[in-house]
C-alpha cells in the first residue's frame, strides 16, 4: 500500500550540529511502524519534521496526496494527521472531557464517552491531566486520538514514564488503531514490546534512516543488533523480573 505520509530526504542542522543528513519516514495505512534509534540520533527531530512541527533545512513532506516543502502542523492536522509529542499533550488548564469535546467539535469526531470507556478513563473525564498518573495520561491522549479518528498518527515516545503493564495495554491500543486502517508511527526504546507489535521497523542512526522491514528481518540485521539492540538481541524475550526465582 502507498504511504499516506512520507518525509523524504530530510536534512536538519541545529547551529553547527547536523542532526539529520538524509532521513526518510513513511507511514502506511493499516501498518504500525516503529522508528528506533539511540538518544540524540534524530528520531524525534525527524518525527517533528514529518508532523510539520519543525521546518527541515531541505527535504519534502508528502501527506494525503499533496507535497509540501514547508508546512505547519495545523495544516497537516486539518488534512488528517495527529501528532503526539514527547511531552504531555493535554493541557492542565481544562478537564479531559472538555479537551476531548473540543476535538470532537472541531472535527466532528467520535463519541467522547465511548472513547473514554474504551480507554478505561471514564472515571477521570472530569479531572485535569495533572491529577492522573503517567499511564492514565497516556490513555487520555489516546482517547483524544480515538475521538479525532485521524488518517495518520505520529507518536513520539508514547511509553515514557509508564509501567510495563500499561505499556502492554497501550501497545494493544496502537495495534487496534493500525488494524482499523490508521497509519501509525511510534518511536521508543521499549524493544520487546515494540518489536512484538510492529509491522515494520526503521532505524535512525548517524543522521540517516534504514528501512529494516519486518521485526523478524530487523532482528536478523547484524549492524542493528550490534549497534542498537546490544545485549538484548542475545536474549530471547527473557523477562526482566522472574518472580519464581525469588528466595526468602
Amino acid at each position: 500500500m502507498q504511504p499516506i505520509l512520507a518525509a523524504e530526504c530530510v536534512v536538519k542542522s541545529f547551529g553547527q550540529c547536523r542532526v539529520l543528513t538524509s532521513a526518510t519516514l513513511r507511514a502506511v495505512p493499516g501498518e504500525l511502524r516503529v522508528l528506533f534509534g539511540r538518544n540524540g540520533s534524530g528520531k524525534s527531530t525527524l518525527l517533528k519534521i514529518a508532523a510539520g512541527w519543525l521546518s527541515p533545512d531541505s527535504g519534502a513532506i508528502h501527506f494525503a496526496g499533496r507535497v509540501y516543502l514547508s508546512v505547519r502542523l495545523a495544516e497537516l492536522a486539518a488534512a488528517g494527521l495527529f501528532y503526539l509529542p514527547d511531552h504531555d499533550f493535554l493541557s492542565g488548564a481544562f478537564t479531559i472531557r472538555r479537551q476531548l469535546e473540543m476535538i470532537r467539535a472541531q472535527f466532528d469526531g467520535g463519541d467522547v464517552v465511548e472513547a473514554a470507556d474504551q480507554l478505561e478513563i471514564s472515571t477521570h473525564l472530569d479531572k485535569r491531566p495533572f491529577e492522573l498518573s503517567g499511564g492514565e495520561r497516556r490513555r487520555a491522549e489516546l482517547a483524544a486520538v480515538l475521538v479525532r479518528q485521524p488518517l495518520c498518527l505520529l507518536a513520539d515516545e508514547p511509553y515514557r514514564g509508564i509501567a510495563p503493564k500499561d505499556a502492554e495495554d497501550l501497545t494493544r491500543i496502537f495495534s487496534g488503531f493500525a488494524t482499523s486502517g490508521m497509519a501509525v508511527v511510534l518511536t521508543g526504546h521499549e524493544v520487546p514490546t515494540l518489536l512484538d507489535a510492529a509491522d515494520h521497523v526503521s532505524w535512525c542512526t548517524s543522521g540517516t534512516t534504514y528501512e529494516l522491514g519486518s521485526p523478524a528481518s530487523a532482528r536478523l540485521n547484524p549492524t542493528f543488533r550490534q549497534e542498537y539492540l546490544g545485549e538484548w538481541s542475545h536474549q530471547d524475550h527473557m523477562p526482566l523480573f522472574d518472580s519464581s526465582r525469588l528466595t526468602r
Partner: protein
Amino acid sequence: MPLLLARAYVSRGARLWLITRALVSGAFLYLGTNPLRLSAVAVVGIVVLSVVLGFVETYGRRERVFLANLALRPIFLSALFAAPAMIGEVALRVVGAAL
C-alpha cells in the same frame, strides 16, 4: 471554529486583559492620567500586551501542539485573545466619554 474552543480562549483573553488593564490603569493613575481616557497608542499597546500574555500562557502550559492538532493557526488564537481586550477597551472608552 467550535464554540467550546472559542469560549475557552476568549475567557482566557478576557482574564489577561483584566489583569493587564488593572496594572496599566494603576500606573496611569500614579502618573496622574485618567486611565479611562488613554491615547489610541496606549489602548493598542494594552491589546497587544494582552495577546502577547495569552501566547506566553499558552506556551507555558504547553498547549501549542494541542492547538495545532486542532488545526488552529496562531492568527486565530491571536483573534481570540484580542477580541475581549478590544471589546473591553471600547466599553471603557464609552464609559470614559460619558463621565
